[in-house]
């Protein structure tokens, strides 16, 4: 808008003032809605979260200032530590299992682009658009005892050991059952993202590699993987931040159980805040989630955001 300023500097003072005011009014009304939304539904609640985390507050009794008591209690809270542990092992296994699997699918789909490529891409992405309640519903469908999909498969194959497993009721298996359905649901996004990145690699690189007699695997290892260094790191950060916020699937499939076997930070927050009505402690967990995800998001930005990355 330099031009407007430039023009007004030649004009008379009165006109200048009027245009200046128009400009400010315009700016004011453009930013107002966004600011209003954020102040009411974001900034005020953020401030309240910090305040509540320093008080002892239940739904009925009065708020009492207790300092860092809530945070200290978290250090002795078994459930909180279970949540923390699950969140980080979830992040670790997503990076170790989901990303390589997605890379394999994305690379193979783009390497042989034939008539199957687009339909297969649409198939792999399909689970990603299902709302989490429906993913959870399908997860229960697959892993249910007695009549679930896997158990029924075990029956028809005559494998008694498979037919008698209760995946979601077994503390050692429940985490993995949810992880499996999450892999099914979320990998599709990694696949299409990596595909779009691979397709941006200049054709000449591949042609040169083929002229040198490079096989598919050495092309993948020495050209594609280094080119995808940045997107893969971004996805790793996304996996980690996503794990910190993990709530929907474990809450609907097992509600964190059996015991604390599938508790996540989100579920501990929900249990403390909306089942035990211990607002102070729930707010403290909210602050912990915020700080952790801030650390990882800053990491994401410091990885060097390329110019075209935002859109």
């Amino acid at each position, binding site marked *: *808008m330099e*031009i407007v300023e430039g023009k007004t500097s030649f004009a008379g003072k009165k006109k200048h003032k009027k245009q200046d005011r*128009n400009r400010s009014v*315009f*700016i004011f009304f*453009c*930013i107002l*809605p*966004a600011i209003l*939304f*954020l102040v009411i*539904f*974001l900034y005020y*609640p*953020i401030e*309240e*979260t910090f305040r509540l985390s320093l008080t002892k507050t239940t739904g009925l009794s009065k708020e009492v200032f207790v300092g860092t008591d809530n945070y200290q209690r978290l250090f002795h809270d078994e459930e909180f530590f279970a949540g923390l542990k699950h969140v980080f092992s979830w992040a670790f296994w997503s990076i170790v299992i989901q990303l390589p699997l997605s890379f394999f*699918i994305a690379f193979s*789909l783009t390497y042989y*682009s*034939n008539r*199957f490529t687009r339909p*297969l*891409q649409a*198939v792999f*992405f*399909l689970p990603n*658009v*299902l*709302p989490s*309640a*429906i993913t959870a*519903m*399908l997860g*229960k*469908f697959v892993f*249910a005892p007695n*009549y*679930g*999909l896997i158990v029924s498969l075990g029956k028809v194959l005559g494998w008694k050991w498979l037919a008698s497993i209760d995946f979601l009721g077994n503390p050692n298996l429940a985490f993995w059952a949810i992880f499996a359905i999450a892999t*099914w649901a979320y990998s599709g996004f990694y696949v*299409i993202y990596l595909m*779009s990145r691979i397709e941006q690699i200049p054709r000449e690189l591949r042609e040169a590699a083929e002229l040198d007699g490079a096989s598919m695997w050495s092309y993948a290892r020495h050209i594609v993987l280094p080119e995808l260094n940045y997107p893969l790191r971004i996805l790793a950060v996304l996996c980690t931040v996503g794990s910190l*916020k993990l*709530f*929907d699937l474990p809450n*609907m499939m097992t509600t964190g159980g059996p015991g604390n076997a599938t508790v996540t930070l*989100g579920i501990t*927050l929900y249990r403390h*805040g909306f089942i035990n009505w211990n*607002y102070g402690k729930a707010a403290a967990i*909210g*602050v912990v*989630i915020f700080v952790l*995800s*801030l650390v990882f*998001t800053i990491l*994401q930005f410091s990885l060097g955001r390329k110019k075209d990355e*935002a*859109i």
Partner: protein
Amino acid sequence: MRMRREQSAGRGRSSSRVHYGMSEIIITIVLVVLAVITIFPLVVPLLFAFKTQLEFAYHPWAIPEALRWNNFAEAWKAVRIDQGLLNTLIVCFGSILCTIPSAVLAGYVFARYRSRVTEILFYAILIGYFVPVQMVLVPLYRMEVSLKMNDTLYGLFLPMAAFGIPFWTLIYRSFFKSLPRELAEAASIDGAGHTKTFFRVMLPLAQPATVLAVLQVFMGAWNDYLLSLILLSDQNKFTMQLRVASFLNSYGTDRMPRYAAAVIISALPTLILYLVGHRWIIKGMLSGAIKE
């Protein structure tokens, strides 16, 4: 493209040409198998849902003896997906109407009217991008209760919009920054004021960004579970997701045919949406790629 590869690979040894074709076939088979596994859980309910409990117990994998629809009737009554769908759609459109106009306006100003004040405000809005929803659940719930906004659909989509605005402001800002300056200059030489320049010139140009924003915000609201779980407790206000979740709580998997019918009924709206618009949805997901 395949021709060229075979030519270059077939140079010299004739066996390498066969080898190339083989690995293409093998990889394609592996991919098709993975795709079948992906589709499998969505197809199997069709096999289960038409059976009686007895028929299912003895022959779960057989073709159903007859097309019995009573499981669907029961599942429909239990899930009442229609009512949930209506509420979800209201939330989706409310969220779009609140998020996008606010974000377009703010993004435009932050791109084109840069001064110290607007820069500070921009960073203030950007803070919202870093705040996970979980952090503010408790105060949000308490505030809505005291304003009597909980258990209303607008009480759901207003905060939802607040969570979306920072990201879309960022996107619109970079979009407007990428437009050539001459456009706005031409408009203002023609005597158009700030408002007119924005509505007549800039807003129509932002259409590609707006299409993607509409799609993304719609999907976000469609998929929301956590906020609705906290803010809605009246069954009549339940969104599709909450309806499904409460079905999961109150109906077990022991009557599997009915459960399978419920799976089909619940997944159908999203599947239809995907069938119609999967090109757009994939494109939209990629454009908002680094969102969550």
